[in-house]
């Protein structure tokens, strides 16, 4: 037939406008306030970490795509950029750049590409990178600096949670004030210190429905309840829930890392269990564990449960008999 032939494709022929790169770019935009805050507080050290993590992550991804003969498109979908950014944000300001690069390579290679790349990984890649670094170089990963805005000329500096755990800050009355935690004028990983910047971005993510609000809600709820019980029972020994929420990596973890769609459950019951699990484990580690902070471990730990949760709580098919329990 001489006339034109049209496209053959399966229905539906309409598609929503949202796309993977758009989602990823939204997250990147949401992270910008916190990135800016970290550059403000840690200056060149922050910039160095960002650049090395981003470059190393992108290069590692590119090499893997090349080896596996996959289209390079996923280099530009933004997911690697988020991994790089988030990894950098969870590193201490003193970390030497070659370690940051090792972490980035591990994050993308072991955390993501060995599983098959975007969408296939089980664990949060940035946190795999961070956990690797934390375990491989524990000294380097726990050496802190005060932000440039604090006129303390210390070579090292304890983070608010470190203070709480190892210096008995509550008893000594040296607990970092909430106000300082809120603005970020304190020590810690470069991207985690400024609560306000993180919350600003989180607001964007929640209003744009990029993240599932139940995850941060569940985490905050569980942590508040857990630390609250102890705080009420012994305010002279335990820090308040507000402190626990604002200190350390909780906010960045709850809003930006636990919400990673690839590594969190899909259905609402499973999501609640996942989120509550993270919150409780953070509380356990911070109050009773060997580490000052447990966000990273909690998220990775609950990541291992996600496949099971997704299977156990699959939604009821319309017309399926209700499970009688």
């Amino acid at each position, binding site marked *: 037939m001489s006339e034109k032939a049209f496209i053959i494709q*399966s*229905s539906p022929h309409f598609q929503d406008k949202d796309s993977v790169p758009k989602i990823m770019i939204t997250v990147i935009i949401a992270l910008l306030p916190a990135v800016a805050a970290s550059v403000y507080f840690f200056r060149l050290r922050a910039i160095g970490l960002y650049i090395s993590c981003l470059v190393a992550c992108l290069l590692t991804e590119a090499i893997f795509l090349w080896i596996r003969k996959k289209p390079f498109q996923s280099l530009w979908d933004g997911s690697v950029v988020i991994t790089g950014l988030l990894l950098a944000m969870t590193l201490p300001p003193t970390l030497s750049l070659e370690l940051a690069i090792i972490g980035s390579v591990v994050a993308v290679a072991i955390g993501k590409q060995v599983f098959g790349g975007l969408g296939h990984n089980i664990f949060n890649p940035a946190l795999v990178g961070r956990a690797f670094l934390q375990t491989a170089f524990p000294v380097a990963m726990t050496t802190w600096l005060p932000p440039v805005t604090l006129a303390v000329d210390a070579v090292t500096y304890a983070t608010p949670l470190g203070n709480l755990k190892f210096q008995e800050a509550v008893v000594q009355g040296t607990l970092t004030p909430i106000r300082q935690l809120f603005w970020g004028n304190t020590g810690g990983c470069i991207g985690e210190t400024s609560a306000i910047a993180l919350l600003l971005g989180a607001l964007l993510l929640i209003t744009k429905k990029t993240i599932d609000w139940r995850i941060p809600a569940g985490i905050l709820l569980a942590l508040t309840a857990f630390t609250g019980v102890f705080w009420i029972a012994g305010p002279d020994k335990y820090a308040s829930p507000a402190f626990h929420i604002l200190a350390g990596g909780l906010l960045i973890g709850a809003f930006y890392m636990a919400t990673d769609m690839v590594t969190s459950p899909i259905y609402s019951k499973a999501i609640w269990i996942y989120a509550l699990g993270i919150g409780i484990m953070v509380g356990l580690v911070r109050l009773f564990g060997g580490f000052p902070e447990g966000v990273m471990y909690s998220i990775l730990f609950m990541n291992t449960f996600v496949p099971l949760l997704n299977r156990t709580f699959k939604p009821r098919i319309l*017309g399926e008999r209700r499970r009688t329990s």
Partner: protein
Amino acid sequence: MKTKTFPHGIHPPEGKESTVEKKLEFLPPPEKVVIPMHQHFGNPAEPLVKKGEEVFLGQKIGEATSLFSASVHASVSGKVLSVDGHNHPLGKPVLSVTLANDGEDRVYPEWEETEHPFEFDPDQIRKKVKDAGVVGLGGAAFPTAVKITPPKDKPIDTVIINGCECEPILTADYRLMMEYPDEILKGAELVRIATGADRTLVGIEDNKKKAFDLLHQRAASYSAEVFLVKTKYPQGAEKNLIYALLGREVPRGGLPFDVGVVVQNVGTAKAVWDAVKTGKTLYERALTVSGDGVKEPKNLIARIGTPFQAVTDCCGGIGEDVNLVIMGGPMMGLSQWNLDVPVIKGTSGILAWSSPKPTTEFSCIRCGRCVEHCPMGLVPTQLMKYVKYEQLPEAENWGALDCVECGSCQYSCPAKIPLVHWIRLGKNQIMSQKRKKSA
């Protein structure tokens, strides 16, 4: 009045503005019609005519071969040019009767008009409907005579008339409701009598308020109640509509029968009325011609067998840059590779679009939107993966066969994965394996 609805689903742009006020026009019968013997769910009909024979308008030219089949009728009067395979909107060539229109529309003499159709008993109604070759005009083209013959052990209490027209763009059902409200309600009454149900419900989406008002006002004279349902896709899918109106859930793998319901499209109701009242066979149907590639979007009543080319020609032709032609709505319609296919009983619309950009596909990021929107409560991403990685038994476990292919999942997928195509692939493979096993 509160609108009723079902959980999940999506709300794509409606796109009905360009045709919603366009009255149904009768499309002039073309020179030549091509009438496939297979236009319905079930087995193809057997041709009754040979090359060279003369036929009347509405004369039966294809005989239903089994219970699950429907007869086919001439949509023009004239001469049989050939009985041969011809391109078909469903993709594969189908045995079709090509008629040369003599332009006289000589009506088949055996049609009989009835004075008091409401006094018919169910069997009489069914016989009329069957003779007229009526099939569901809402999508699946299920032979209506079968549908209104409920199994003995499954009493029907409710007939639902589906006036949702939830597909974007399409407005033909709306025009039918606006222009033939009484025929529809009377047809519904006949269906109610045939099925022995107690009541008739009509569901209309709240973006068709005028149709609701009109039917609501007329319904008083028949035992029908009219309800507004929320404008949401796929409100018109029968299982969801039943849930919205009655709160009943059709069991997995079951049919509306199983919860005492029969669902009929408004067009089908009208066709039932016509068949019983006048004996008119199903040789024409209402459809919407629209899309940005169509010069003059219209609502038409077209003869079955009219080539798409003739339909679009009558709407000013299609644009130069059109590269996608769909039979049906944008959510569930079938893409056509050329216009050399005929209008069939299931053609609810013909849409032509210019270059929708081919979208780049990403890997599933498990965002869960497909799950959130699936009206059947399925996990499309999981189904897709099971099919892709060839775990068909798992796919079946997870409900692949329950998918109604509504496309809500794929519509909302940010990774642009052809979820529906995968699931259809899985359904077909599962079914063909089952067939092999039972054979």
